Structure formats: structure tokens, C-alpha cells
């Protein structure tokens, strides 16, 4: 089982790597078959990582969501699942060349550092609410990631139009209106899911307050998640009200996603992700 898990995991990473390379080739040269290959390879990579996830779950009898390797793999699988759902619309398929390279980069990093995580037991998640909380959070991050990449595509298209250079890749990407619609759908799904995740997490933390400390809600991770939820709410509702549209919306979503990444990275590197932050400090 462990061997199968290892094979599926590394094969999945290799397939993502190939998908990333194919996507870059498509950005450079217009070959519809290369785009088909990108989507197929990313799909196959996701299937392998999902299999590795299942093998790991069976092998340790624990939902594998806690280690960095598990988290990244789960994020890649969920992002690809949403991407494949989007790709059912033929006129947005070219967006795969924006989604696949960062996923490939993430999988390369994961393959390089995952060895220890993969072959040790994952930490047990206490109860179904926590499993749901973590799973939904990853799905929301996947939606935000895709929204971030879609906004990058929007900025690219808009800049090309503004600079009067509508050739090459521009002609293969979806229209601005299509990108805007995709973007708002992704945020529209990600934002309520993220709020629901926060509510579930808060419920779980409240039941575990003896363990997490009385001021768990002041932990940087919780505060920042709350700020992110407010940011999403403001962005989404301003867009719905027609006050935020086009390049400004795209920039805001892209910068928001980059900020989210940066904050979580800083929290992880400084080991500040504990809920007992203020308790530990005092």
C-alpha cells in the first residue's frame, strides 16, 4: 500500500510537471492538441494524487490533510477538479495554460520536500467538523487560486487591448466578458464556502476552547482569515453592485490572492499558525 501510494504520488507530480510544460508550450505556440494534452495531463496527475491520497488514508486509517505534502496534493487535486469542471465550456479551455504551470511548480516543490511527510502517519483530525473545515478550506483556496489566475488572464487581455497589441496568445484566450464571468463565478463559489469554513472552524474551536485557549479567536491565523472573508465579501458585493468591474476587479482579486499566499507562507515559516498564540506568548 505504501509503495503504491509513493508511486501514485510521484507519478502524479510528474504528470503535473508535464502538464505545466505543455501549458508553457501552448502559451508560446498555438497548437490545439497541446492544450488538449495540458488538460489531459493535469487530469491524469490529479487522478494519481487522489489515488495517493486514498492509499495513504487506507494505509494509516487517518484522513491525510495535516502535513504539507498532503495539503499541497489535496489543493492541486481540488484545483484541477474545479479546472476540469470549468473546461467543459469550450471557450474557456485556453485558461488551462494559466492554471497548469503554477500547479506544476507546486507539485515539483512538493515532490522535492514531501519524502518524510509521505511515509509517516498524518496527524489525526479530531472529529468530522474539523475534517469538513479543513476540506472546505482547501476547496475555497482552490477556487481563490483559480480566480487569481483568471484575473491574471484578464489583466493580460485587458493590457493587450489597451496597448493595441491584440495578437498571439490574446487571440486564443477567452473574451474579457467571459473572463469576468468566470472570475465572478469562482469568487461567488469560493467566498460563501470560505465563510462556511470559518463558521465551522469557529464552532469547532469553541467546543475545544479548553485546549486552544480562551483567546483562540485572536490568533493571527483566525484574524487574517476573518480579514480575508471581509475582503472577499467587499469584493464580491461591490462587483455585484456594479461598482467594481474590469481591470480593477482583476487587480484586486490577483493582489488579494497573492496577499493570502504571502500571509499564510509567513505564518507557516514563523510557526505562528497556533490557535494558542496569545496564550503561548504570555
Amino acid at each position, binding site marked *: 500500500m505504501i509503495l503504491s501510494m509513493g508511486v501514485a504520488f510521484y507519478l502524479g507530480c510528474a504528470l503535473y510537471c508535464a502538464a505545466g510544460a505543455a501549458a508553457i508550450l501552448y502559451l508560446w505556440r498555438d497548437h490545439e492538441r497541446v492544450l488538449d494534452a495540458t488538460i489531459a495531463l493535469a487530469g491524469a496527475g490529479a487522478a494519481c494524487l487522489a489515488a495517493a491520497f486514498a492509499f495513504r488514508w487506507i494505509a494509516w486509517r487517518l484522513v491525510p490533510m495535516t502535513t504539507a505534502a498532503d495539503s499541497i496534493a489535496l489543493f492541486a487535486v481540488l484545483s484541477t477538479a474545479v479546472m476540469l469542471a470549468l473546461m467543459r465550456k469550450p471557450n474557456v479551455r485556453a485558461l488551462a495554460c494559466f492554471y497548469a504551470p503554477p500547479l506544476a511548480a507546486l507539485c515539483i516543490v512538493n515532490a522535492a520536500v514531501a519524502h518524510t511527510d509521505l511515509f509517516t502517519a498524518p496527524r489525526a483530525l479530531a472529529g468530522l467538523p474539523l475534517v469538513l473545515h479543513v476540506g472546505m478550506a482547501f476547496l475555497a483556496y482552490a477556487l481563490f487560486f483559480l480566480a487569481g489566475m483568471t484575473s491574471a488572464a484578464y489583466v493580460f487581455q485587458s493590457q493587450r487591448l489597451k496597448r493595441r497589441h491584440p495578437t498571439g496568445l490574446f487571440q486564443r484566450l477567452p473574451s474579457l466578458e467571459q473572463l469576468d464571468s468566470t472570475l465572478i463565478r469562482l469568487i461567488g463559489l469560493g467566498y460563501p464556502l470560505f465563510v462556511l469554513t470559518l463558521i465551522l472552524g469557529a464552532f469547532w474551536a469553541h467546543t475545544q476552547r479548553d485546549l486552544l485557549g480562551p483567546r483562540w479567536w485572536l490568533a493571527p491565523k483566525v484574524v487574517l482569515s476573518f480579514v480575508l472573508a471581509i475582503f472577499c465579501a467587499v469584493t464580491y458585493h461591490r462587483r455585484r453592485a456594479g461598482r467594481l*468591474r474590469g481591470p480593477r476587479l482583476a487587480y484586486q482579486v490577483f493582489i488579494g490572492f497573492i496577499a493570502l499566499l504571502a500571509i499564510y507562507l509567513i505564518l507557516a515559516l514563523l510557526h505562528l499558525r497556533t490557535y494558542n498564540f496569545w496564550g503561548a506568548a504570555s
Partner: protein
Amino acid sequence: MSLAVVGLNHRSGSVELLERLGFSANELPRALRDLRNRADGAGVVILSTCNRVELYLHHAQMDSASLCAHARALLAEWHAIPESEFGDALYAFHGQDAITHLFRVASSLDSLVVGESQILGQVHDAYLAARTEQATDKVMHALFQKAFSVAKAVRSRTDIGAGNISISSVAVDLAASIFMELSNKTVMVLGAGEMSELTLKSLHSRGVGSILVLNRSIERAREIAARFDGEPIAFADLDRHLHRADILISSTAAPHAILHPAQFRDALERRAQEPMFVIDIAVPRDVEPEAGDLDNLYLYNMDDLRQVVEENLSARREQAERGAAIVERGADEFAKWLRAIVAEPTIVSMARELRAIREQELEKTLAALPDLTEKQRQEVGYLTERIVNKILQSPMTQIKHEIGHHDPYTVLHLVRRLFGLKD
């Protein structure tokens, strides 16, 4: 065997000369019959378009020079124009060069607008007309079939047809790259220039939702609106209706800018920042260039559209180089096939001739040697057969080689004379 093309195109001859030497659809059947009769039953195809007049000929025995002479004579006599008047504009290609030329023409590498798709249809029509008149032969049929497959390969394996190259089509492409669909979009036309009508026509054919027409003269606005099933609006009401326009085509004759950033800012506010595409094709410009800096407003003037056309043309020229490689490969393949087809009758006839000699001589020899046993008679038979095969081997290889490098007619004619073969 000879294959040749004689003709003139947009590069070698003037438009006037092309018009004078062209063949109308009605004239074509008679011209094909005439050319076929002149060239002793040669396979012929005549391609006559606005940009080229070309006569393709193939004959199993006649040499290329004679075929070309017949083609030139037809052009001169049919149109009653002395050859001296158009001789300098004519070009002629023979053998593999003629094959490559046809493949380049069909693939639109030789067109005035590289990558245009019309020419393949025109070549197809020319071939069908010749077939209907039973003016094609086996080689012509194979040549044109190969030309169609090469042209399709060039179109599918390169981007030679990508990117529009007319101002109005580029404008429509840009609109399609901003909006998901045009069927629910409103086009506002300001002024009534020729180019704005062309662009409107292109957008109308793509099924835009509604059309608003504004003109200083409301009568003229009504006239255009009626033609495109649109709504005429008084010019004075421009500000009141500007926010309704998803696409604005402006081409008034105003001597200064009539649309300012503030008007667009207001319009964008009223349409909840939904994008606007503004095509300013007026000279001097109708829209202040600063309007292009507004978010969600995409402003293109005539120079911008021309620049896009130029970029698309330059991209097509790059693709044409890739297309030329596909054409070369196709021409090589066809020439190889043709060489095998051409050499075959001569080789067969040469082998038959030598074997007939062998049989005659063998018969004589065996009659003079009655004491030979059956086995010895068989051995002598085998010996002569081996000698004939060895003699044939070298000429067979050399004929195929030589007709690939020299005029096949000359090579095969020489072989036939050397071996005393009948035509």
C-alpha cells in the same frame, strides 16, 4: 512527358492586362476545348481569377516548349491581342517547378493577400470546369488532387489564415475579444462614412443585438437605420444615449473631437462600468485620445486598426515560410510519383523489346543445335534471360534517375531512339 504552366498574375501583369487576358465562366469550356485541340489532346486546366490567369498543360509525348507555345498562342488568338503586348508579363514553369507553383497558388502562398481562403475554391472550380469538359488526364487529375491536399495541410498545420486583414473584420474581431457574444450588444453608429457602414455591416452579419444610428441629418440616420433594422436618434441626444452603446463606431466629418473623456466617464458610470468598445475611424479623430485611458473603455482609431492589420499580415508572412516547406515536400512527393508513372511505359516497352529479341535469337540458336538435351536447352534459355535482365537493370535505374534531373521528354525520347522503341 511534359508538365507546364504559362500565365500571369498580380505581380507580373497590370490589372488591365489581367482583365483583358482573363476568361469568363461562360468562355471557359470553349477555351479549354480549344487549348486541348491545339496541344494535341493534352490535359489542360485554366485558372482565371481577378489576380491571375494560368494555363496548366500536360502531355505524354510533347515537350514543354511546344506546350507553352500553344498556351501563348491561345491567349493571343482568343483575346485578339498580339503576343508582343503581354509576352513580358508571362511566366512559364516546367516539370517540378510547375508542380510547386500550383501547390503555392492553391495554398495561397502566391496570393496578393497571403493566406486568403478564396483561392483554393477558385482552383477547385477551375479543375471541375476542366473535368466537366473532359480536358483533364490521369496526371492532371492526380496533380490537382495533390494540390488540394497540400493546400489543406498548409491551412491546418500553420496559422496562415489566422488574424483578419481588413479594417472592418479586425474591428469585429476586437469586439468579439471583449464581449462574450454580440447578440445582446448594442452598436451605436455616429456619422455615416463608408468605413463605418462596412464595419456596421460586418457586425450586423455577426448578429449584434440592436443598432442605434446618430447623424447630423436625421433623414440620413433614418435611412441607415432602416437598412440595418436599427433605431435613428437625433445627434443632439448623443449624451442621453451614449451609455446604451456597447460598441461605438464614430466617423463624423467634424473638424475636431466631439467626444470627450468626461462624457465616457459618465456613460460608464451609468452602465455600471460594463466595458465599451469605441472605434474611431474619423479623420480627424472624433474621440479625444485621453478617453482611451479610462478603465473598461477600449478605444481604437484608424491607425490602431491599421497597425493590427499590419501585425496580422506580418504573422501570416511568417507562417507562409512554414507553408512553403510543406509545399516543397508535397511537390517532391508528387514529382517522385510522376517520375515512376512517366518512366513506366518506356521501361515496359524497353523490356518487352529486349525480351522479344531474346526469344527470336533463342529460337534460332536452338533450331541450329538439335542435339542439345532438354536440360541444356533450358540452361541456354536461363542464360539468355539472365543476360537480358542484367542489360535492363542499369538503364531502368538510370532512366528514373535522369528524368528526375532533366526534362523527362528529352530523356525518354533519347531512350526510345536508343532502343528503337515505337512511340
